[in-house]
């Protein structure tokens, strides 16, 4: 419980001097694991740092989508990045981030999964995206999403020689139709704030993460225990649509 965050918000101020609808400075670095990953990126939102890497392999498609590639998104909240994360199998927080990031990418149809098919029903490309925070200073949802899509953007197919993957050589990039971006907005009392820090996250009454591609909404995830009115929800979505324009420019 941090009382002063609420008192500051009553004056429309935040701890770090930002406006309520302002993101912290965002930096994206590509190819941070270029010698091993097919694609990789590190995203910094203020002091929050997240790294994502793409590995690809050939595997069997799912039964119900025999001519589509497979995407798997996995986020590990490693205890390196925060005193609050524990060792062990992914807890519900990691699982939520993994699934929310996955949803935005999958539902946006940004990756043309058909183009990942090698032999219908038998061989398709599997795209693994693994996400690790390096420092949790709040808003891992957005940093993880940005890192994932940046890593996918950076990714190149490994060469295939006689049906086997040769990781030493890479060819062209993944077939990307667009870049879905996520924007996380929270509410404390009746104040709406963008890009919450750790301390602000602890005080959030409600949180909405919106996945957007172009002008379309491709995923929604509400968190927090307080309900949102329809009006508040619409206001938040409008704000998100505005904010992602700025995020997209960083990619």
């Amino acid at each position, binding site marked *: 419980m941090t009382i002063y965050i609420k008192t500051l918000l009553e004056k429309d101020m935040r701890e770090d001097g930002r406006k309520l609808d302002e993101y912290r400075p965002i930096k994206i670095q590509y190819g941070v694991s270029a010698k091993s990953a097919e694609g990789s990126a590190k995203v910094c939102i203020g002091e929050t740092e997240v790294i994502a*890497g793409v590995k690809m392999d050939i595997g069997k498609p799912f039964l119900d989508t025999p001519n589509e590639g497979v995407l798997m998104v996995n986020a590990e909240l490693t205890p*390196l990045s925060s005193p609050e994360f524990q060792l062990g199998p992914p807890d519900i927080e990691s699982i939520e981030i993994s699934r929310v990031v996955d949803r935005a990418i999958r539902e946006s149809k940004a990756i043309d999964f058909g183009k990942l098919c090698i032999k219908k029903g038998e061989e398709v490309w599997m795209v693994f995206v693994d996400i690790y925070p390096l*420092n949790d200073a709040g808003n891992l949802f957005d940093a993880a999403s940005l890192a994932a899509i940046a890593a996918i953007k950076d990714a190149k197919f490994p060469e295939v020689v006689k049906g086997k993957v040769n990781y030493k050589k890479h060819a062209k990039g993944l077939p990307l139709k667009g870049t879905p971006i996520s924007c996380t907005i929270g509410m404390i009392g009746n104040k709406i704030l963008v890009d919450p820090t750790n301390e602000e996250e602890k005080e959030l009454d409600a949180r909405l993460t919106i996945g957007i591609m172009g002008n379309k909404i491709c995923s929604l995830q509400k968190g927090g225990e307080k309900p949102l009115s329809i009006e508040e929800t619409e206001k938040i979505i409008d704000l998100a649509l505005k904010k992602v324009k700025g995020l997209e420019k960083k990619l």
Partner: protein
Amino acid sequence: MKLTKRSDGRKFDQMREIEAKVGVVKRADGSAMFKIGNSIAYAAVYGPRELHPGHLQDPTRGKLRCNYNMMAFSGSGERVRPGPNRRSKEIGLVTEKALTPVLDLSHYKNMAVDVFIELVQTDSGTRCAGICAAAMALADAGIPMRDMVSAIAVGKVGDKVLVDLTKEEEDVEEAVDMAVAFTTRGGEVTLLQMDGIIEKSDVKESLKAARKACEQISKIQMEALKKKYKK
């Protein structure tokens, strides 16, 4: 087999390029990054803090716990399945043993000092990179230390003792691969692991070569530590 040169052009006693930075994880009590060649290790220290479960506590002094993990995309071949495996658990153990001798944990009775090592990219020499990063991170965290620790992998390839082996060199038939850690001032061995079969004289020569390399590494570690605070 007579070895005349190394495939990447390095001298026999030359290490790959090293980069070291301290204070890279702001939330941690101490942190550092150590890069050697293409191996990149991050280390973060949290502590002293409460040790759970209670039965693991030591009432006479604090406990160092090290966890080593490779990020799924950090290997040059296939994806590495996330989660601890036997190899990473063993590396965590030897890392603990490599660092505990220099730490003064007497004021942290019943508590833990936790070190988390993550590999962003791996290209041989990773456990040594992890130890170098962890040593800097512990100093950054203000944990009292009697000495610094540096680690390097050396080995016998053909008829030569080589410093900082690449994966290629490790894979040469009958190559011997040794991971060693030394304390800086004391020159004492705190990590010693070896794969292969060699003569006693080769062990001596390898340890000498490792000590020289570790002296160079410790200078880089010290500089990185001072750089963080010298604004």
